[in-house]
């Protein structure tokens, strides 16, 4: 089951650039939350702070409180522990090129030393089914490289890979922006199904996509969160002038 995320006074820097400025936000459990905003506004940095990927860049740092349930991820846990609880799907599909489809999906478990074949088999099948890819690949699981799939299939495989470690939160950083419309709609259907079991945070440039999949939407601009509300409100009666300008296409 998913877990809610509580963000208080989150600040992040790249070198001397203050990329995120005092973000406060409550992300409810088992819902999809969309983050929109123009390029460079900090929404990707924000999701990368939620699984401590931000700090893998040597010049990056972050301060503030991020609570996942009762756990303050910057105080009470190591980055490795947190990333096992928080799955991440990236903008471009990033399969491990040397691994088969099976090994790609099982990688989170295998690379952490898990070897029980029966459980691995079962997890791979369950994750690929959850990612709506099982029927397409079940005959080539160990024969084909993960990199030999089409872009849309690769992205669903990456979602399966993230689901295989049984996370509570799923972060998706523009998961469909490199995909064609058919693959995009498959990914959106998938998000729709997954959000009953996982807390999903999705960064997107596509406002229709936010409207289709997310209950709540946050609007970011220049490193600040301008507005956070139910998706309906954001797209029909935004309370901030800048949000209205953005969603009506007056800038960005």
């Amino acid at each position, binding site marked *: 089951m998913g877990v809610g995320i509580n963000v208080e006074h989150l600040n992040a820097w790249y070198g001397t650039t203050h990329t995120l400025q005092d973000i406060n936000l409550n992300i409810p459990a088992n819902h999809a939350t969309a983050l929109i905003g123009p390029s460079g506004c900090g929404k990707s940095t924000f999701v990368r702070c939620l699984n401590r990927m931000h700090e893998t860049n040597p010049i990056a740092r972050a301060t503030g409180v991020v609570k996942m349930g009762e756990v303050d991820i910057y105080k009470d846990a190591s980055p*490795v522990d947190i*990333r096992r609880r928080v799955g991440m799907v990236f903008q471009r599909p*990033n399969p491990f090129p040397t*691994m*088969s489809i099976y090994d790609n999906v099982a990688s*989170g478990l295998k*690379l952490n030393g898990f070897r029980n074949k029966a459980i691995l088999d079962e997890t791979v099948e369950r994750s690929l089914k959850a990612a709506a890819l099982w029927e397409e690949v079940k005959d080539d699981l160990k024969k084909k490289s993960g*990199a030999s799939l089409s872009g849309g299939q690769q992205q669903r495989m990456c979602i399966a*890979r993230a689901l295989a470690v049984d996370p509570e939160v799923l972060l998706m950083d523009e998961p469909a922006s490199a995909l064609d419309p058919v693959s995009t709609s498959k990914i959106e259907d998938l998000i729709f199904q997954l959000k009953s079991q996982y807390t999903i945070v999705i960064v997107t440039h596509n406002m229709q996509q936010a409207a289709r999949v997310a209950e709540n939407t946050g609007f970011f601009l220049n490193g600040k969160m301008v507005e956070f509300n139910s998706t309906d409100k954001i797209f029909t009666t935004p309370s901030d002038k800048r949000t209205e300008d953005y969603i009506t296409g007056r800038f960005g």
Partner: protein
Amino acid sequence: MRPPTNYKSRSMRLNSAWRYGINHLVTGLAILSTALVIVPLVAILVYLIYKGASSLNLDFFTHIPAPVGETGGGMANAMLGSGIVLVLASSMGIPVGIAAGVYLAEYGQGKLLAMAVRFTADVLNGIPSIVMGIAAYSLIVMRQMHFSAFAGGVALAIMMVPTITRTTEEMLMTVPHSIREAALGLGVPKWRTVLSVSLRTASPGIITGCMLAFARVAGETAPLLFTAFGNQFWSFKLNEPIAALPLQIYVYAISPYDEWHRLAWGGALVLILMIMVSVTLVRIYAGRGVLKGAS
């Protein structure tokens, strides 16, 4: 707006003739350059076979050198010695080289120590091989007061390290950052990501680097002159002087005896074949298990 038809067709015709010509010229130059690379290689191999093949017989591969004046004899001990020294060198040089390359690419980005290591590796790469021999001589032979297979292995290992380090680093740098992030994002610790994802993805290039380093030192004579030293009989001891093919070829080639000259040609042919076979074997072995569609 479409340009006037006559203007367009005329300039395009000229343009395409020009491009056609340039295309042929550049293709021709590429073929010529390829030939320039291949011709000397083939010429050397053919000449070696012509000069050396006749001295290859069962004795050559099974006997130790015969004393001066006697006919027959072989280079079996030198082949074995080369094998031993190269296994020693590889077992020291390859792990150190790869580990240093991993440090440079994965841990040392922007660090002063990494810059020093990189610079040292580049300088080491350009140092004449005889200097490596002198280094191993003063480090090991002088202390032990005798020549040894081990000292020869160390001299060759030092020669292997810089090549392997730099290739490993460069190959790791070609692994896309997104793949590392994929592993880190799954909660895989960094050391495990480096071992199972970065190194594994870069392994074809790293293996090539190791093979290049191996092939280079396999034919080295100078670093062995005052380390392995060479001998004329069977020796399996790492702590004693040992024969090696390049040394044996050197000794025979500068000798005044025709019989020895023939054996030197045979030895050179065998050395090249040994290098070719071992590189090919590693390539086949390392190429196994690669999946369809993997890059």
